[in-house]
């Protein structure tokens, strides 16, 4: 079974981002970039399926400029077999990414596509669902457990009220939640082997997709700064402040 995994290059989640002075965007100058944590979980899940003998080949795909090859190489080091970069410039919105991925799905015919439930930069939580609709495949989103059984996959989903299990006919789409697995570290020998693995570069035109934008970013600004707290001397003072200053009781 062939598995396609999507990975995105994003700002490292431990980095405190700043808005550019002119408010046009987040300042990405000299900022540490990494693989989106949910995508990392997606790669790990695919690798586990391969180790369990369920998956036969893992293809890691990323949409972005040349720099995103770094994250594809990370996926290859973690255990993906080959990589595909779809060369784009600037920000691309979820619908475009979904269309591009659909192009790859048509070319590669994977039985399973695993994506992160969202990426931590845009927080859109749309790409997996849009791809499901475009490619006409069933989807199991927010997965905390994935079990492949013959030509079906059971996906346990983290929903508001608890857990829900859905059974999908393959080929299908899975998007990962945090609890699905704990990704391994990339081993140095595997990082070196990954350098020799195949990495194809496609243009959107190769996949028959025209990049159009439906969104305009108006402004990026930092959240309002939190005011420093104070220590109150007594319960009476606390109640007084809550009543008369904060006016919450």
């Amino acid at each position, binding site marked *: 079974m062939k598995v396609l995994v999507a990975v995105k290059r994003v700002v*490292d989640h*431990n980095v405190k981002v700043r808005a550019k002075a002119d408010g046009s965007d987040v300042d990405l100058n000299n900022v540490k970039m990494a693989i989106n944590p949910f995508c990392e979980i997606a790669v790990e899940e695919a690798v586990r399926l391969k180790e369990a003998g369920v998956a036969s080949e893992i293809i890691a795909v990323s949409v972005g400029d040349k720099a995103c090859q770094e994250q594809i190489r990370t996926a290859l080091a973690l255990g993906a077999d080959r990589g595909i970069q779809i060369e784009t410039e600037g920000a691309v919105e979820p619908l475009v990414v979904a269309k591009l991925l659909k192009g790859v799905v048509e070319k590669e015919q994977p039985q399973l596509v695993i994506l992160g439930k969202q990426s931590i930069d845009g927080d859109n939580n749309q790409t997996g669902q849009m791809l499901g609709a475009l490619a006409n495949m069933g989807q199991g989103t927010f997965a905390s457990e994935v079990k492949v059984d013959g030509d079906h996959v059971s996906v346990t989903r983290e929903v508001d009220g608890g857990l829900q299990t859905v059974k999908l006919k393959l080929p299908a789409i899975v998007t990962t939640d945090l609890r699905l697995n704990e990704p391994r*570290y990339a081993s*140095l020998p595997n*990082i070196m082997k990954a350098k020799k693995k195949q990495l194809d570069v496609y243009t959107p035109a190769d996949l028959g997709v025209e990049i159009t934008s439906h969104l305009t970013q108006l402004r990026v600004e930092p959240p309002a700064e939190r005011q420093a707290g104070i220590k109150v001397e007594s319960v009476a003072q606390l109640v007084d402040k809550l009543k008369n200053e904060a006016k919450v009781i």
Partner: protein
Amino acid sequence: MSELAVSELSPELVASLEAIVGKDRVLSDADSKAHYGGDWTRVYRPAPCAVVLPGSIEQVQEVVRLAARENLAVVPSGGRTGLSAGAVAYRGELVIALDRLNSISDFNPVERSVRCGAGVITEQLQNFAQEQGLFYPVDFASAGSSQIGGNISTNAGGIKVIRHGMTRDWVAGLKLVTGTGELLDLNRGLMKNNAGYDLRQLVIGAEGTLGIVVEATMRLARPPQDPVVLVLGTPDMASVMEVLEVYQKRMDLQAFEFFSELALQKVVEHQGLQRPFESPTEFYALLEFEQRSEADMELAMELFEHCVEQGWVIDGVISQSVAQAESLWRLREDISETIARWTPYKNDISTTVSKVPAFLAEVESVVNGAYPDFEIVWFGHIGDGNVHLNVLKPDALPKAEFQQRCGEVSRWVFEIVQRYGGSVSAEHGVGLLKKDYLHYSRSALEVDLMRQIKRAFDPAGIMNPGKIFDL
């Protein structure tokens, strides 16, 4: 020294102390005594007569003057994370806790320096530096509790020494209240000051025996760019040193730490962390370097390949994100806390880096021969020639018997330290725990000079008496 100690303060003395620091700032309940009278060690039972929490330099001076007049021994107390019982008040001393002197002020971007009260928490200074786009490079697992005054008094080292040195290298100036209650303003932040002896340097690492550090001007560094962490598995200790040599020759390392398989097992099991890679190896080296360009990464890889070809490294991982770098660091940094439940017998020994392989081979054979039935956890700042050797107490063995057996073997270990010209305390200080072993590292003449220096700063001998050496 016993004439200095009291177990209860007279009501008059309590009243005088309260008059200086305020009524709520003199504590003598059992909980406060146990809390403020001890440190991270669990060998001596804290038994101070009382605890005072002064709120200003003047108050510290007045308390010390009072103590000098009354011939009352005092113990300065910082974050109480010390590992040699330096801050333990065990025979009725008065504890002066610096917790309230915790303000940071007078940041100077030109000098890249900032003024800290003695009670500023190490992490508080690290965070302050970060907010200014700078970096305070002294760091270790107890940084969330230890204080700048305590760091200075122990000349704390930690995990970045290989690149940034010890606390000493970051103290631009300090203020000391001597044993007579006088205030010294030492070095005043000067970069160059060859006008006489540098008394500041004597105070750094004095473990509170010369006086109380009340304030310091600390220097800050530029933050590291994109730190990357490697954890490498090695077949033996000699290989760890080969790896160090190979990497240090070609790269500026930020850190080079090591730990043993048993240390890793304990941390993984008790902290719920992930092993770096599946196959266990005898020892692990943790390296951190700054990735300023692609070339740094390529070089790190090339050196890794070389080490594998030579058989010095079996497997390895590299952080792909800041989160992974932090998780890998926890494998090393969480060791102390993890093994604390086995009340380990700790040795913090060092020699010059080039002598480490032969030195360690000898120490290892003595220790393995002496403790066939004990669990031994090795880790430390091996890039600085510093190892922490921890012997874990088997649950069934009574504490006293365990301490005694370890004490005997320590002598053999320290004889090796002595032959190699090493130190019986690389960075944790001497306090009470290493006092009997000081002579393995310091000549009688040296210790005698130390005594004379102490008398000059503290004629009444009230400042942390009985620590490091007896008068």
